[in-house]
Every structure is written in C-alpha cells, then in structure tokens.
C-alpha cells in the first residue's frame, strides 16, 4: 500500500483517452505493385535474384539473403495450408502460395476448423469490391482439386501504389492513483488546486506526487494553492493542427501558481489577442477562470486571464 500523506483511496474511474491518428503509409515498390494489381485479380510476388527465393505477396527485400535486387513475378492464387487456428475473427491460417518459398497469413473461408488439415490445397477468393488492400482477397477456401500453379513473368505491371490511407484509434484508461485522484477530486468538488509540500518544505509541488524529483525522498503534507499565479513562459499559438482542442489564436502558458515551485500548463484568454505578445509576458499575473462544469479535470478551468500586478494573494 502506497504511503500517501493525507490521501485516501480514490474511487475515480480511470481517465479515458483516445488517440485518433491518421496516416498515409507508403508500401514501396513490391507491396505497392501487389496492391495495385489486386484490382486485376493478379497476385504479385517477388523473386530475389541472388537467392532465387520467391515471396508472395511481393517484398522489397529477401527475407533470407537480405537481397534488394528483386524481380516482380506473377504468382498463382492457389497454394497449400501450412498452419491454422480458430479465433473469434474466424480461421486464420498460414498459406504457402504455389512456387513461393515463404508463408503468409490470411483467413480461411467456408470451412469448419475440424475439417482442416495441414497440406490441404487452397485457392484465393477475390472480393467483390476492391479497396487496394490485402483484403481484396477475402480469404482462401479449401479446393481439393485446385491445380498446382506456377510462378510466371509479370507482364506490364501497374505502377506501384504510392501511398495508402490508414488510421489508428487507440483507446486508453489511465489510473489516477491517490495523488492525481485527490487533486482532481478537489478541483471538481471544491474548486481547490491541491499540491504537496516538497520534502525540504520549501514550496509546493504541483501536480502532487509521492516523491520529490530532486531529493527522491517522500513529499510532505497537502497544501491548497490559490488559483492565481505568475506566467513563467508563454507563446501565442497560431498553428492549426490535428487533435487541437480549441481554435487559434490562443496563448499557451506555463504558469507558476502562488506558492508552487513547479508549473501548470494552460491557456490564457480574456485579452485583445491582436496585442497578445505585449499584454502577456513572463511575469504577468494571472487568475483562473472556472467553467460551470465540474468534470474534475484541468478543463474545469476554462482559461487564465491577466490581473493587475498587485492583485490577489501572492508573493
């Protein structure tokens, strides 16, 4: 059990975050040609000119020799089952295309896993709608009579697909723990920003933490900080980018709350943004402007706004 000064068990559910990342991936010559040729229902492989070994789907580099001198070839859509497993997403199998020297992974369609056996003949099932992905092959089905195909020269291959959109949606659940837990509980319930005393007792650490970063000893008692502070660094954001929470322009600020010895990152508004650089500078005094919502996060503070230099609690 963590020894947290004056803290208590936190019943907060984890913080849920999502990273929604968009990509344009470049498959390169070999995989790019494979993806460009599925629309023609042609399987493209590659033969390494130094090892003589054949990859299907095509690869830029020989998995055995590391050779980069690869000849693109036409491969059959028939092969042999070399391994399989049943999953919630169906039967996943390793397949050796006729004439290839390496396996690749795909689905088996229309088969009962109990009826499968290694060495069975399989044939590709092409999709109705082509999306220039490996799923242009819907899967493979067992065809006992599938003829033994062979590798052949690839005539007039389509130009390689230069890029392919891709997306990752990554969902996380971050545990608050007793320190962040109490900090955000108190922000949500009583609009108090709580830090802990540094182990030397000189100043308050925010966000609160179990160990002092400098001495690596346990931190001290909890302290409520005022919602006023001083700007230690600021920039005026004009850049627009994916994932941005508010439209520019706004001020990115690192703020030292009165009594704290570490920084809080937030935005500053409530000023004439055309004069932002002159109105807000290191040393500018600011106060938190709270929202009406109580989510128990830093977003319960809408923003900070400048106050008169001699105003409020402070130094």
């Amino acid at each position: 059990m963590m020894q947290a000064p004056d803290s208590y068990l936190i019943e907060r559910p984890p913080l849920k975050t999502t990273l929604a990342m968009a990509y344009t991936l470049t498959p390169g010559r070999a995989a790019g040609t494979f993806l460009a040729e599925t629309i023609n229902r042609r399987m493209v492989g590659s033969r390494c000119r130094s090892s003589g070994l054949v990859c299907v789907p095509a690869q830029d580099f020989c998995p055995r020799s590391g050779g980069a001198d690869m000849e693109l070839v036409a491969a059959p859509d028939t092969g042999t089952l070399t391994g399989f497993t049943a999953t919630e997403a169906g039967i996943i199998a390793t397949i050796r295309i006729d004439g290839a020297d390496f396996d690749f992974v795909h689905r088996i369609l229309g088969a009962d896993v109990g009826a499968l056996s290694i060495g069975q003949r399989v044939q590709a099932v092409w999709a109705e709608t082509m999306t220039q992905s490996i799923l242009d092959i819907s899967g493979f089905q067992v065809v006992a009579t599938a003829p033994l195909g062979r590798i052949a020269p690839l005539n007039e291959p389509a130009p390689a697909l230069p890029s392919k959109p891709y997306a990752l949606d990554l969902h996380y659940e971050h545990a608050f723990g007793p320190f962040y837990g109490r900090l955000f509980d108190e922000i949500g319930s009583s609009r108090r920003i709580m830090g802990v005393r540094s182990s030397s007792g000189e100043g308050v650490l925010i966000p609160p933490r179990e160990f002092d970063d400098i001495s690596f000893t346990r931190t001290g008692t909890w302290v409520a900080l005022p919602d006023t502070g001083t700007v230690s660094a600021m920039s005026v954001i004009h850049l627009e980018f994916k994932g941005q929470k508010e439209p520019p322009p706004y001020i990115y600020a690192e703020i030292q709350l009165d009594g704290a010895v570490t920084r809080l990152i937030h935005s500053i508004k409530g000023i004439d943004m055309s004069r932002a650089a002159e109105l807000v500078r290191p040393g500018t005094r600011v106060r938190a402007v709270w929202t009406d919502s109580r989510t128990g996060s830093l977003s319960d503070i809408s923003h900070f706004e400048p106050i008169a230099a001699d105003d409020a609690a402070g130094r």
Partner: protein
Amino acid sequence: MSRHVAIVGIGQTHHARRRTDVSQAGLVREAVDRALADANLTIEDIDAVVIATGPVLFAAVNMPEKWVVDACGARLKPVMRVTSGGGTGLAGALAAYYQVAGGQYERVLVVAYDKLSEGALQYSISTLYDPFWGREFAVGIMGFSAAYWRARMDVLGHTEEAAAMVSVKNHRNAMNNPYAHVRKEVTVDDVMKSRPLAWPIKLLDVPPISDGAAAVVLSSEKMAAKSTDRPAWIRGMGYFCEADNAPARSMLVSEPLALAARRVYRSAGITNPRRQFDVVEVQEPYTCFELSYYESLGLCAPGEAAALIASGATEMDGDIPVNPSGGCMGANPIGATGLIRIIEAAAQVMGKAGAHQIPNARLALAQSGGGWANLRGVAVLSA
C-alpha cells in the same frame, strides 16, 4: 579501460518532404547501402545492428525493427532498437559505441530513420505530455519551445532577430548540402515577416518535415584500417536527462546539455570549446535552440548568443562554424537527425564534407536531444 572507437563509414538518403517510391524499410536500405559502401564493407562484416527510430506514433508500426531487419541485413545478428524522440540518432550511436568500446563487438552498424510524411506530427509529439497534466494544451513541443524562448528573450537577450540570423545562416549553408531538400536562401526580413506559428516561433524559424534515413559503421581500432585510413575517432559521447517537472528546472540554459558537454569535454580534453573545435553540428528543432546551445555548449557565455551569431563567428568562414550542413533547416527526419549531425561532424574530420567542408577540420562537436528539452547529448569526434 574502454577501447578506442572510430566511425569508418557514413551514409544518408537524399532527404525529401515525401518519398512515395520507398517504404520505411526502403529508406533504411538506402542509408545502410551507402554507409557500408563508404566503409568498404559488406553486411557480412557487421557484428551487430542498432536500429534507431522516432516514436511509434510517427509511423504506425510497432516494433519497426522487426520490419526493417531484412532491409538492413540484420537477420540472425544481434539487433536492438533505440528510441529517444529527437535524440534518437545520438542515442542509437551511443548504444553502438558502448558495444564496441566495451569490447563486445568489432563493428556495429547504426541506422536511424523517420518517415514523417506518413503521420500527424504535432499530434504525435503532443503525446509526450502527461495525459492528466497539460496534454490538452500541448502544441507538439512547439508551444513549449516558443514559450521558453520568450522567457530567454528577457533574461538572455535571445531576440527574434538573432534567431532569424540562425535561419539565414543555416538556410544558406544547406545550399551546399546535396542531401538537404530545402535549398532556398532567406533573409532576416523574410524570417521576421514569416507567418507566426507559435509566436515568437515563425514559419522560417522551423525546419522542414522530412522523410530520411542515416547510417554509420562504428569500428574498433583494430579493424578500422580495413575501411579507411582516415576515420573519425569518437573522443567522447554522452546523453543526460533532467526531471520532467521538477522545481529546480529553469529551462533558460539547458542543464542536461551543459552537464553532458562538461563530462564529455573532460574526457576528450576540451578546455576551451570555442578555440579547440573546428566545427560544430547542432540539432536545432527551432532556430531559438541553436542560440541556447551556443551557451550550453560553452561556445559563449550565457547571454552572449545573440552577439555570437551577429558577429559571424558561427558562419562557414567564422572561427567556430556551426551547422555547415545547414542543420535541420535543410532536412529534419527527426529520428535520423541526431545521427545526421554525427555524420556531418564525422564527414568534416574525415575530410569528405564536399562543398561544405571546413578546411583542415580536425576536431568536431555534434549535439542532439529529445523530449521537451529534458534529454540532451553531445559527441566529440577527431581526425
């Protein structure tokens, strides 16, 4: 006692805003082939491989080292991946240096790359912020970097004009670098009038976003002669970190960089960096950082960086040229950038920097770093 280690081969891609003719693996192969050819070796001569790449979110492939093994000839060799944000290239070289200096291997290949055209850069970088504490306000590291530049203006006099001179110098130097993809001269006025992105950072204070790879071969002293009679000897290398949100962190002078420099200078016998170094390569993610590094690296005293750039001392023909290659302004494939700085410094002392060669360069300094200014390192190379 550690062994002497030399850089005996260097290679980099012709960097580009976007390469649609090669995958990430293809980029890696180009740099590896060039470094091996430069070292007069084949992959058979390499004992171990270090693969250095930026954050996984840049490229959507987890554990990319397994993917690029075929492309760098690492099959059945000892392989490890090193990643450390912008400092990835230097951290990768350091991992390889330890392996040779410690006597484990005779020759280690390091390849570093990023293909930044493929993902959302600022959004990816913003994930280095604590999800509870500040990530919702993050602007990559640009907002943060601009904020502390603004603070340094007041305390250290790092003006917008001084940073603009860095941009002018590095853009001009990149004109002579065949691997740079931004080759366009700019003026101080152009920089000052360029669009603010995170003021005081403006468009022309910012390097390009690049696809690129870089590779080096590190060799023991015993084996170096097979590759070249003019290697770049590693006289010292270090990479230091400071706490993320600690009370003592001022971020006005880069403390981890000053610490790394102090330690490495001591082991390399550097007592007067400005006089002793013939050339310096720094990784400037924004122009303001080059000013800050002048001070942290001891090229001038804190508060004198603006005067140093204005004096012309860091120009090609100055007494302490910084970034003859053009630095990040010519190309910035982040995961590779630290290794590119080492390659450019090595090329100088090997006498093969071509059109941007500093005559008779014998002692070179390379700098790189990652995180939001908390990880910083240097390498000292000599002829």
